[in-house]
């Protein structure tokens, strides 16, 4: 069974603080993605990765960094969190050449 996990599941942060969202996948997929979900905007791609050591900017990368230290782990980093980054964040993995993406359970982030 495909498995993507995220931590934390809920996070409250203060404006200007640093936030790290973690994602782990046991699918052995090369590709990993970070999305944010907002009503009226759907799922928007923040960063993605081809494999360990690689990160690429997605459609809305401003204010976010990403890190892929291993095949299994992909982190999203907000160095200076702002209230506009309050959202639900989903991590996903996918196998190169196949287009289905497997999503984690999501992290609800609130920036006060």
């Amino acid at each position: 069974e495909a498995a993507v996990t995220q931590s934390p599941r809920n996070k409250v942060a203060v404006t200007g603080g640093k936030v790290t969202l973690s994602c782990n996948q046991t699918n052995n997929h090369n590709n990993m993605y970070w999305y944010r979900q907002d009503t009226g905007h759907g799922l928007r791609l923040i960063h993605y990765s081809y494999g360990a050591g690689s990160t690429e900017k997605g459609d809305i990368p401003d204010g976010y960094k990403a890190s892929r230290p291993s095949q299994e782990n992909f982190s999203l980093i907000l160095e200076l969190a702002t209230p506009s980054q309050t959202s639900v964040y989903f991590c996903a993995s996918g196998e190169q050449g196949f287009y289905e993406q497997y999503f984690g359970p999501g992290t609800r982030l609130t920036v006060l």
Partner: protein
Amino acid sequence: GDSVTQTEGLVTLTEGLPVMLNCTYQTIYSNPFLFWYVQHLNESPRLLLKSFTDNKRTEHQGFHATLHKSSSSFHLQKSSAQLSDSALYYCALKRVSGSFNKLTFGAGTRLAVCP
């Protein structure tokens, strides 16, 4: 660039009535790949069905959709709505962007099925 349009933000139906959720797309790719993802409350999105073939109906879990390249559409349908179909539905398009697998998602349509 690639884009996906879902015109309805919310569709409310009575149980037993047919479902149709609209999806149109724009792409320069002559062989588009289209997907429907479903997200139930407090869950994550999961693939419902996909299609790469023009004018061929694809079905899964009672839902079906047909990719029509002539009208750039991939509408999701079901003959009879059930309460358990209440969820958020996303239409998505594989992007034309090199070899990496990226998807463009529509804004989503929330389906609410009432007794």
